């Protein structure tokens, strides 16, 4: 056993054909990493097709893991290690492997057929054989052969044997990174409880991979990453959509309201529907509507009936919901509209991430139709922000748009999950039943926050009518009176604006209170901004990071913060949408950094951009 090198952080990309089990391999390695106390972030990278033909470029499935002994903010820019199960996987991913990085290649995936499928030129040599990979540390292993050999005595068919290949890779990497096999063996035992043969095979191959590392001296050394300075406590790993699901269920429990989720499937929001549908024992009602319009309208119907009503979708679906959301604004009923953004416009890049629905969320309805818009900045944050969206909706009787995106939805992080008891309650304010002939019930009477009461059908003495026509203040009757309309437009606006008094002041995530540059972000850019600004701050730059959760209304101190910096840089995965809103609100010039490629901003890109802005100072 050679030397063990200690590293601070490592990024591994597992890539192979959709059928190669790379998502599972990545997930298991991730869990193994987490248990060792390292911090980490992951991001999967699915093909756009359901099942692209085996071996093709379109069929490559990837899983990226970034882990370290320091706090990890993103799944990593470039990889230190690339696992390539076939030629297509190598071709697709080589571009982001670091200079001098390690490649673990399954040679069996580089035969003629695979080269052709991966669109290497006719008759081209395997990249494993020519000088393509010069400068990289390449480990060529015929994983298929070794796996089959290891299982030669079992009764499994070739197909089943080959399905264990990924365990070989995993075992091999476990040796390389000085890991324990036990958690994975435990996992396999549960998964294949009813299939002892398969279980045995998987464990055998896993161990074979480990021993292969140990004995073949492929690597001259093992690598170890120490545990990270994470807060003490019990952790789990969680993906963004999953966290959002838990947030919604938690909000329902904390408000004592049954949850109603009306939705129509759409990538990348569908998993919220799938996740919630599993939680019927939490009184969660999922309703798969015939389209997005029906989904939002059913949710409004459920809100009217007293449920915690939520509807979820992605960009094109949000466009369709606009008219319905306008009615919710008029009815002043609580409603949460989740938009897991993806590449647009139109159908766009449905499986890719983007932040390009912000303006639609803020402005995309007819008439003067303001509503709160809040955004999620990381997979774990999805939990807390979902609860906050529900709180605002219920406590302020207003539809709330909650923005997530494809990167958050599918990314994962370790999460020191809270105790249910430690989370604050959400208080719905129901109109109370009335008996006798007291004064008339006034459905649009408001409290000091301009909030009306929630008057549920079925409540004695409150029968009243609501609708989309302009309503008279207090009585809620239809009114065409000119000054009343202006009053109602203003009061609906004021109600939303006043929410600023019921949300926290904006915090600076890191960096000085005043300085040269404020990097202002929202949504899934949080990790990369945090990582880069921390780095720059530690090198003495007067740079700070603010990440907005609240986009409408903005936190009340945001203007002051902006004023304390010489420059403001807004990085976005769009063409400058937050920039527009900031400029029209604060009349301040901002620098923009816009990447519109369906993929996250990398640390290197952002750092270069920030340094350039600073230099131009």
């Amino acid at each position, binding site marked *: 056993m050679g030397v063990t090198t200690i590293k601070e952080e490592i990024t591994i990309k597992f890539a192979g054909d959709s059928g190669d089990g790379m998502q599972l391999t990545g997930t298991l390695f991730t869990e193994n990493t987490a248990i060792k106390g390292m911090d980490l972030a992951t991001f999967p990278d699915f093909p756009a097709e359901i099942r692209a033909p085996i071996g093709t470029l379109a069929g490559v499935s990837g899983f990226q893991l970034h882990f370290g002994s320091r706090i990890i903010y993103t799944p990593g820019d470039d990889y230190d290690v690339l696992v390539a199960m076939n030629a297509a996987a190598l071709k697709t991913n080589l571009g982001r492997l670091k200079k001098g990085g390690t490649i673990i290649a399954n040679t069996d995936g580089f035969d003629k057929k695979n080269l052709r499928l991966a669109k290497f030129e006719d008759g081209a040599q395997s990249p494993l054989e020519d000088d393509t990979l010069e400068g990289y540390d390449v480990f060529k292993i015929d994983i298929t052969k070794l796996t089959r050999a290891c299982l030669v005595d079992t009764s499994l068919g070739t197909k089943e044997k080959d399905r264990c290949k990924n365990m070989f890779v995993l075992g091999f990497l476990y040796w390389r990174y000085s890991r324990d096999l036990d958690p994975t063996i435990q996992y396999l035992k549960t998964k294949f409880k009813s299939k002892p043969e398969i279980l045995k095979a998987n464990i055998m191959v896993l161990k074979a991979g480990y021993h292969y590392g140990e004995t073949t001296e492929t690597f001259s050394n093992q690598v170890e990453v120490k545990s990270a300075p994470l*807060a003490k406590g019990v*952790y789990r790993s969680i993906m963004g959509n999953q966290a959002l699901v838990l947030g919604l269920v938690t909000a329902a429990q904390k408000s004592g309201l049954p949850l109603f989720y009306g939705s129509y499937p759409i990538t990348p929001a569908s998993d919220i529907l799938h996740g919630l549908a599993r939680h019927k024992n939490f009184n969660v009602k999922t*309703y798969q509507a015939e389209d997005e319009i029906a989904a939002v*309208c059913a949710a409004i*119907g459920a809100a009217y009936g007293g449920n915690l009503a939520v509807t979820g979708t992605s960009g094109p679906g949000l466009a369709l919901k606009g008219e319905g959301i306008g009615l919710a604004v008029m009815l002043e009923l609580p409603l949460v509209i989740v938009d897991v953004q993806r590449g647009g416009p139109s159908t766009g890049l449905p499986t890719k991430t983007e932040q390009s629905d912000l303006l639609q969320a803020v402005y995309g309805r007819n008439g003067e139709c303001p509503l709160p818009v809040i955004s999620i900045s990381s997979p774990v944050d999805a939990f807390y922000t979902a609860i906050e969206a529900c709180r605002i909706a219920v406590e302020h009787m207003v539809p709330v748009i909650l923005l997530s995106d494809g990167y958050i939805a599918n990314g994962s992080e370790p999460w020191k*999950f809270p*105790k249910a008891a430690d989370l604050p309650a959400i208080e719905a304010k129901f109109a109370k039943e009335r008996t006798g002939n007291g004064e008339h019930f006034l459905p649009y009477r408001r409290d000091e926050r301009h909030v009306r009461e929630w008057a549920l059908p079925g409540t004695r003495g409150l029968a*009243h009518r609501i609708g989309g026509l302009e309503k008279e203040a207090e009585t809620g009757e239809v009114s065409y009176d000119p000054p009343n309309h202006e009053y109602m437009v203003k009061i609906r606006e004021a109600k939303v604006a006043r929410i600023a008094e019921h949300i926290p002041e904006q915090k600076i995530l890191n960096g000085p209170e005043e300085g040269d540059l404020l990097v202002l972000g929202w949504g899934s850019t949080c990790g990369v901004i945090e990582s880069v600004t921390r780095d720059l701050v530690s090198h003495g730059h007067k740079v700070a990071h603010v990440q907005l959760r609240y986009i409408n209304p903005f936190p009340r101190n945001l203007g002051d913060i902006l004023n304390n910096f010489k420059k403001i840089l807004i990085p976005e995965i769009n063409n400058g949408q937050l920039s527009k809103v900031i400029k029209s609100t604060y009349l301040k010039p901002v620098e923009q950094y816009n990447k519109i490629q369906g993929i996250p901003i990398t640390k290197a890109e952002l750092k270069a951009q920030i340094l350039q802005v600073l230099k131009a100072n």
Partner: protein
Amino acid sequence: MTKPLTINPLKAKDFATDQDVRWCPGCGDYSILKQVQSVFAELGLDKDEVVVISGIGCSSRFPYYTETYGMHSIHGRAPAFVSGLKMANPDLDVWMVTGDGDGLAIGGNHMMHILRRNFNVNIMLFNNQIYGLTKGQYSPTSEEYKKTKSSPYGSLDHPINPIAFALGCDASYVARSMDRDPKHLKAMLHRSHKHKGAAFLEIYQNCNIFNDGAFFEFTDKATKADRALFVEHGQPLIFGKDQEMGIRLNGLQPEIVNLKHGLFTEDDLWIHDERDIHKANILARFSEISGLPRPFGVIYAIDRPTYEEVAFAQLDDVKSVKGEGNLDQLLAGNMNWEIK
């Protein structure tokens, strides 16, 4: 919610709001409103347990005039609001009002889906074969070549047959009535209410401003007996001033026979069977077979589980199998580790 004791049952007028009714004088909607209010009283409904939900259109003004809970929603989407509301509170007594434009133009899809899903709701589709509120354009039920504001040279669309459409959507209950026969309309409203599931009731309604007389042949004293056929479960199809005409099935073809001539007796006639989808489908097509009278009454009615019934049963099932959800367990998930 438990139904509270109602000591003084409400009268029809107790179901009227204090709002001015703003339909055109003479509009058929008035009669429908009146019958609905009477039926609410006759059924002894509790106004706090009733919700009237509509889309947009003249007809959809309805909720403003019924002293119950109500929502005047957006154009065409009433079925979706109803569905969500029923999922929130299945005990409410929900009545939906829509028009031929609201329910069959912009809202046709939601109509299809609420019918197949079979939420327990009483749907009233006011068919006046015109867009009233937008001042007179042809609608999906307008006859071909109709001259309207938007079709000065005649409309081109082949009309949809609401009854055939509802049957094609697997509605569990399909019926037809008219504004100008209060007794029949009331009877039909009672039946709608009795039906558990989505009760689709098409109501012929006269728009005296933009499409006056569209249904006069069925409502006018002079022609009604010959042109309107009132079907009743278990009874033969008979009509005519002196109940002298009958309908029999010749193979699959309905035929009018004269009972006076002695050639046919009641025994030869088609006996109405609400539960027979094939018969219902043929009845639905009477309007397209020249000479046949128009059927009114319950065309089709079967029992099948309502959506909310099955949905709540499933919630209970899952709870009984998995136990009430434990939030802490849910948050913890299956795989934890501890940082010490």
